[in-house]
């Protein structure tokens, strides 16, 4: 491993710039993160990066916590903390400022139009993200049956979602999907 001090500086610069570039969500900067972490800084192999990505997708919490793992591999616990904060803070400050504007414009026509007009687009994006997730998870027919049953349960009954996801995880653990 290279010396930790310069790694920390690389971590700080890389993730704080990726933070502001991550327009459209954290996943949009993953190709660039991959290029830097694997090719430029040699923090890990391409396979390791792919595995860390899979862990971050499945683990609870925002999937951007991939940067926590990359920072950890590059420079230990300090690297993990630094990477996480550097990834969240710059875009977070920007979003905070926008949210202040949003709060102040409660009755402006633009806000009313966004609230009503964006709703159908959001529903479409949510549906699309479920669809894309199912592609990424390599859904076979058994997984689709499980997904269909869970969707039905969740849409038509008041079952606690924890039970649904927990039950599905149990079925996976038993090796049935």
């Amino acid at each position: 491993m290279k010396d930790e001090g310069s790694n920390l500086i690389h971590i700080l610069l890389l993730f704080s710039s990726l933070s502001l570039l991550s327009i459209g969500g954290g996943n949009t900067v993953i190709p660039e993160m991959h290029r830097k972490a694997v090719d430029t800084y040699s923090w890990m192999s391409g396979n390791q990066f792919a595995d860390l990505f899979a862990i971050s997708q499945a683990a609870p919490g925002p999937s951007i916590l991939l940067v926590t793992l990359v920072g950890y591999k590059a420079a230990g616990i300090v690297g993990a903390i630094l990477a996480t904060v550097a990834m969240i803070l710059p875009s977070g400050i920007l979003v905070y400022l926008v949210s202040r504007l949003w709060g102040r414009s409660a009755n402006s026509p633009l806000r009313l139009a966004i609230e009503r007009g964006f709703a159908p687009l959001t529903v479409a994006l949510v549906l699309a993200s479920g669809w894309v997730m199912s592609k990424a998870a390599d859904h076979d027919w058994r997984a689709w049956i499980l997904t269909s049953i869970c969707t039905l349960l969740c849409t038509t009954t008041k079952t606690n979602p924890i039970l649904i996801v927990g039950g599905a995880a149990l079925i996976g653990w038993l090796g049935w999907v």
Partner: protein
Amino acid sequence: MRPTSPTTTNSDMNDSTAAKPSLIELALTFNHISLASFGGGLSAWSREVVVVEKKWMSEEEFLSILTMCRILPGANQVNVAIFVGAKFLGWPGAVAAVFGLTFLPAVLILLMGAAYFKYNHIPALQSTLKGAAAGAIALTFSMAFKTGQKCLLGAIPFVLFAATFFLNGILRWPLFGVLALTGPLALLWAWPKSPNK
């Protein structure tokens, strides 16, 4: 079509319908949302808690914030936490919500990462995750159905919905290209007609 919007329930900061949460409640709530999202489906979980359970936001406000949070830089769910936290308690609220959302999951993912680098794989994780992902995808579909029932009333919103899904989900256009096309049309459709306020 839609009930002539009850705009009297002013949804600005002094909203008294939902009790204002404390910093600790914000942190705990987002921690709960975050930990529940094992296998994915974080958007569906935040809606479940923020709109249905806590009633901190109306369905429309939450949906519009969700899309703005996708456009802005940063992870979507971190951005949602900032919006919700800041709405009630300013920047300390935003910090509390983001801390709640990320702290324990970051610890967990570090433990998983450490286990991975030690053993090169995590035993029994793959198959469990496959099941959990099937459940999380179901949650996401179900959120689309539930919210769709409320806002896809009429031909124009439905066409906007279908076009956005087709471009983003099937053709896999980047978000920006999709919204550059359907966003302005949606705003044009939804712009308040008369000076109704």
